[in-house]
């Protein structure tokens, strides 16, 4: 029975080791904030933090995650939606349909952890997630606001 550490909790799941982390999070841990968009690491909707780095969980088999690895999902990014990115997202009304936004926020969280004051070029390079509603301008503005930088 694979063991995981998700949002600070030790959990056991029932799945074979080839199952992508995404489906364990969504189907067994009911952490449905992590989304399925493509299944091939193209869209970023499934982005979670693995030991602080942004990973696309749709292509990360359980076999590649050990119980000492720290998995953080959108539900665990803050206890009350108060992460600076979440606050900035609310202030700027960033989401449209919102489906891509949890992945956007997780990718941005990894970016800010590595580069607290990202430039526009840093944002372009790190934020390769797809948003079909077209929120890119506000996503960029949200990252700058959370970082205290201006575009």
């Amino acid at each position, binding site marked *: 029975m694979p063991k995981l550490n998700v949002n600070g909790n*030790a959990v*056991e799941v029932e799945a074979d080791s080839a199952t992508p982390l995404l489906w364990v999070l969504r189907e067994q841990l009911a952490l449905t904030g992590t989304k399925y968009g493509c299944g091939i690491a193209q869209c970023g909707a499934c982005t979670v933090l693995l030991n602080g780095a942004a990973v696309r969980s749709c292509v990360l088999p359980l076999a590649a995650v050990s119980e000492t690895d720290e998995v953080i999902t959108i539900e665990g990014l803050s206890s009350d939606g108060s992460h600076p990115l979440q606050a900035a*997202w609310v202030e700027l009304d960033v989401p449209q349909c919102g489906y891509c936004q949890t992945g956007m926020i997780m990718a941005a969280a990894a970016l800010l952890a590595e580069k607290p004051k990202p430039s526009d070029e840093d944002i372009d390079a790190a934020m390769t997630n797809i948003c079909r509603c077209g929120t890119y301008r506000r996503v960029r503005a949200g990252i700058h606001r959370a970082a205290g930088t201006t575009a």
Partner: protein
Amino acid sequence: MTSIKKLTRRSFVLGSAGAGLSLGLRLPLGISDAQAQTGFTDEINAWVVVRPDEQVIIRIARSEMGQGTLTGLAQLVAEELECDWQHVTTEYPTPGTSLERGRIWQSFATGGSRGIRESHDYVRQGGATAREMLRSAAASAWDVPASECSIARGVITHAASKRSTTYGQVANAAAQLDVPADVPLKDPADWTVAGQPLKRLDTADKVVGKQIYGADVILPGMLNAAIRQCPVFGGTVASIDETPIKSMPGVKKVVTLENKTVAVIADYWWQAKTAVEALNITWDEGEHAGVTSASIAEFVAAGLEADTAFVGNQNGDAPAALDTAARTVEATYSYPYQHHATMEPMNATARWTEDRCEVWCPTQNGESALAAAAKSADLPPQQCEVYKMHLGGGFGRRGTSHDYVHQAVQIARHMPGVPVKLLWTREEDMTHGVYHPVTQCKLSAGFDADGKVTALRARISGQSILAGVMPQRLKGGADMVTFQCFMPGGDHSIAYSFPNLLVEHAMRNPHVPPGFWRGVNANQNVVYMECFIDELAHTAGRDPLEFRLEFMGEHPRNVAVLKAVAERIGWDTPPAPGVFRGLAQCTAFASHIAACAEVSVTDGELKIHRIVAATDCGYAVNPQQIEAQIEGSFVYGLSAMLYGECTVKDGRIEQKNFDTYPVMRMADMPEVESIVMPSGGFWGGVGEPTIAVAAPAVLNALFAATGKRIRELPLRHHNLSAA
């Protein structure tokens, strides 16, 4: 670190959201208990519920899919209601309840940028009548004339006797009163809630992962299903070999739907998906297995020269004027199939028994979803219900085609009483869409000896959406929607007047199913018109702005938006060295739109620096959300222009995922400046019209930069390096 119990499919309910009780809006629980718990107590009228704690619940029949309609409609109701906006929440009535109550919420359709412009009068009436009922309830409690009671932010005051009360306190009494007829609506000039750039009501849950989309529905005891459909449209299942999945974990059943779709039902979706992909399925691909993009293009091209075609707009005698013109200009454009690519793939959850069927799904039209559920359930609609889930994008895909609902119900019929969630893979989604239709257009213009334009003829050939999805709306065989932005008047009128004009459509319908795709036929028709008029300006050696304005005298609102973008971009002063500009304008979805793009091309690489866009939508219900729609429209329209194309080979769509169907990402995003300039007196849409000007503004700028006239999309097939 705390240890938590292992969670299994059976040991939790309803995602991570906990046990909330609103009517299916937040939670997929929408079953009858939840409804009973919300009930319709404190319902002032169909649109407004006021709770004793002052909470105001505004009912929204149209679907929220990102476009902001939910907040905009709530603003309109709240404006008339004169409640405190801080107390406003929303809920979706169910289509089944609406049916039971004589369609009291009218249409649930959310498409064609109509959510607000088609329902503003009756939803505002809902707010206004509720306000008067609340006022009357207070007045009769005090035994004073209602006319002496004033209202501000949900507080009712009788100044003479210095008494006041709140909406929450009189709600129950108000709910007993008859709904008054025809309460006058406010003049939009007096709006204080509508018309304001208020924050959306649906953001908080979206940034913490609590918003429940259709794909997130989890019900007690639920099973999961994945499907494969015959890759060739119209093909059928010949045989299925189940050997490869015999020992796969979790698999419950393999079922065939209407002989064209194979589904696997399993405990978890990942198991179902793995199993369905492992099945050996032999398809009978049917009569279209030889169709290719080239054969479709040839079929459509023939329509450009066909003797007969439907006429959409005509004045004078364009063919005769072209015959006698001193000079003619001709060009042929084409537009490929596009996929909606909503970020959330198609899905629906259904529970079926012999006398009841319930469906939880993302839909742009709850009533159509209910009809689809009833049909597949083989039950009267009165015995069915649909709980609308939040949509991870709609863009037209989930409005008229509820194929995924049909399938979910058919699958659930194999598991009576057990809820089953069907989720399509991205690959199924992309290869079984309802596609933006293919068309081509041959444009011809005549100039007289003085260089004046004497005639314009546009012959469109290609696919009709209506013929595919609602043939009952064809008029004498013609699909008038194919003439969007070329019409003589109405929501999609052409904004130019030419002495002689002929616009025709030769209908050519390939086997690939078409659908309404955000922007619909405005998308390609405005490319055709706006790029061609740019060609004409260039031929005439004239400034493209001044040249356009010469034909726009009868369309002052279009002139106003076009001049607004020209002024903001600084048309009268040259752009920075190496930067070039292009214009486009149109009337679409009843709004007047213009854009100016600034681009540069370096070593064959296009860079879009800046776009200025103006919208006159008549009344602007929420200006900051209109700006969001304008920005999003550029992403949608420029994704199509830069990359979007579904090609056909062996009768099937070749692109299966975002690796072969690229879309715009952050790094491609230009600076967009929006000018929202509502001139009043009409209600225009905002979710779609700007898409139409995105591509032609950039293509015209690209021509200015390179001298290359792109007439075939997408752009990625063209080499932009200097010749």
